[in-house]
């Protein structure tokens, strides 16, 4: 059960549409009049299969892809359509974390170089750069921070590198993080650590998340609200617990039932042992 959050919206997507055209192919509609908002300290999970348009929506929110129609608002101010220079200014409020942490960093830069590039844009910095970087690293659980400053990305494990992605996203103290499948590269035993880190940040720094995932059990446990995307449209949305426990739309049902989760495996195991017990009793 995740507590509900009521606050003012940080990020709003209003009737956003985007289609891609390729010569010789029918146009692909990646987003069809999508409405979505994320409030302060709130986590909204966007679930759906690959090709459903989740990542395009994330890119539209970040200003990396221009929508064909509709608006993106940050704190109520329209940012879609701003010229690049101004967009860059406002975009510091909104930071991405991507799936593949090994592709997210320049392999020839050290942790210090990678983080300071972002930290230098912090709106109201305190202390020296080195001190700030150490605080950032320790905040994401890379302790002691000094040990990591001189390292290159390849000298970190996958889990450590994904923490570094989060540290870089935090360097500008953003009110919202847009995370596109941030856990799918991480091992199960590391996944919990990353999620707990994100929950800590949500509680302590009131960070909001637009969290894109295909993992139903994580969406259910981590998000306040969920939006289910299918072929460019949001087909079902609401409280994460309710939607995923009792899906209404056909597609959501398929998504929830199709997941080979551990819970389902356990149910199957129980069924088998019941059968075995009754079989023993019968013979």
């Amino acid at each position: 059960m995740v507590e509900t959050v009521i606050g003012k919206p940080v990020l709003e997507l209003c009737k956003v549409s985007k289609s891609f055209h390729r010569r010789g192919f029918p146009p692909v509609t990646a987003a069809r009049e999508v409405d979505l908002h994320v409030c302060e300290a709130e986590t909204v999970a966007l679930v759906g299969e690959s090709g459903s348009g989740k990542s395009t929506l994330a890119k539209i929110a970040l200003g990396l892809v221009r929508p064909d129609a509709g608006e993106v608002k940050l704190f109520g101010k329209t940012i879609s359509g701003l010229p690049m220079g101004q967009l860059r200014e406002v975009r510091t409020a909104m930071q991405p974390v991507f799936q593949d942490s090994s592709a997210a960093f320049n392999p020839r830069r050290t942790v210090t170089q990678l983080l300071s590039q972002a930290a230098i844009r912090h709106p109201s910095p305190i202390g020296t750069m080195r001190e700030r970087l150490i605080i950032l690293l320790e905040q994401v659980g890379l302790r002691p921070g000094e040990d990591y400053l001189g390292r290159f990305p390849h000298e970190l494990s996958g889990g450590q590198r994904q923490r570094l992605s989060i540290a870089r996203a935090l360097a500008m103290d953003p009110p919202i993080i847009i995370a596109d499948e941030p856990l799918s590269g991480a091992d199960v035993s590391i996944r919990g650590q990353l999620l707990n880190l994100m929950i800590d940040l949500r509680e302590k720094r009131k960070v909001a998340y637009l969290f894109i995932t295909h993992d139903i059990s994580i969406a259910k446990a981590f998000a306040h609200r969920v939006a289910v995307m299918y072929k460019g449209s949001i087909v079902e949305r609401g409280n994460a617990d309710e939607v995923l426990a009792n899906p209404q739309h056909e597609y959501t049902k398929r998504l929830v039932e199709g997941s080979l989760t551990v819970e389902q495996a356990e149910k199957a195991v129980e069924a088998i042992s019941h059968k075995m017990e009754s079989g023993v009793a019968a013979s």
Partner: protein
Amino acid sequence: MAETTAKSGRNILEIDDLKLAYLVGGARVKAANGVTLRVGEGEAVGIVGESGSGKSTIARTVLGLLPEKTSEIESGKLIIDGRDVTRLSPKEWESVRGNPVAIVFQDPLSFLNPVMRIGRQIAESVEHHDQGVKDVKARVAELLTLVKLPVTAARAYPHELSGGMRQRAMMAIALGCRPKLLVADEPTTALDVTTQSEVMELLRDLRKKLGMALLLISHDLGVVASACERIYVMYAGRTVEWGPTATIFSNPSHPYTKGLLRAAKATRDERGRFETIPGDVPNLSKQPPGCPFEMRCPVAMPVCKESMPAPTDLGSRHAVRCYAVEAAAQRVPASAAS
């Protein structure tokens, strides 16, 4: 430990205390550091482990696909279909690969030839490994139907198919060899949730229909449980616990298996935090002499630092390598007898 697994009592695959290392720069990366595993004829067995646990190395070893110059089998034994294949030459491996053992990989796009039609690629495997077949075209159509692809898919190039269809095409190629054992290395990891369950269902059906054994390798306990009768849990190059799927789920014994199950369920505690296993997956190039899980283990004892425990038999073909479990089993000797 004598272990018979198959319904017929015969094993299609036996791995005995296998140790092997990759030579990377000057270092030896011990990707397998004591792996013992059995797959009976017609049996479905899963290997579960995280990245770096050595599970894909096992897949490569069983297919003879280890890099020749940069890997070395240090000790142990590998027996496939009654034949000792531990020290085969690359040439000799050709009589093993395809039949009796075939493989499907995680990423069909890098496995399939992008400039050859699917039908031709399946036909190649039939011509090579199933020379009794007179009408190759008919056999290709039969294989496509078997993996539930339309026969017209034979004319398609890999890029024209969806991810799920490509995975089916790769299965058709593997089945064209008429393998007795199919190794599937993360076959559904790159697929969507709904496609994933379809492909797993197909694998289950095929195994029953063809009476073939399956060695399914995955990081995902849910996927493995959906298709396998028995599970081996690997950690840092070692098999640390194995047993029937139901037993592993209802009565996990190794602290790592327990943690993995709790973590996979994504449940939150009263403080709203997720279950985790503290620490990180170990670096395989600098391994301690003892149990590799010792640094992360909630029940570690001093002896765990010194050496790796031998398997403790918990009965009903359930075994675990853990000193804490061993000590508990000795206190209650009745539970250890089987």
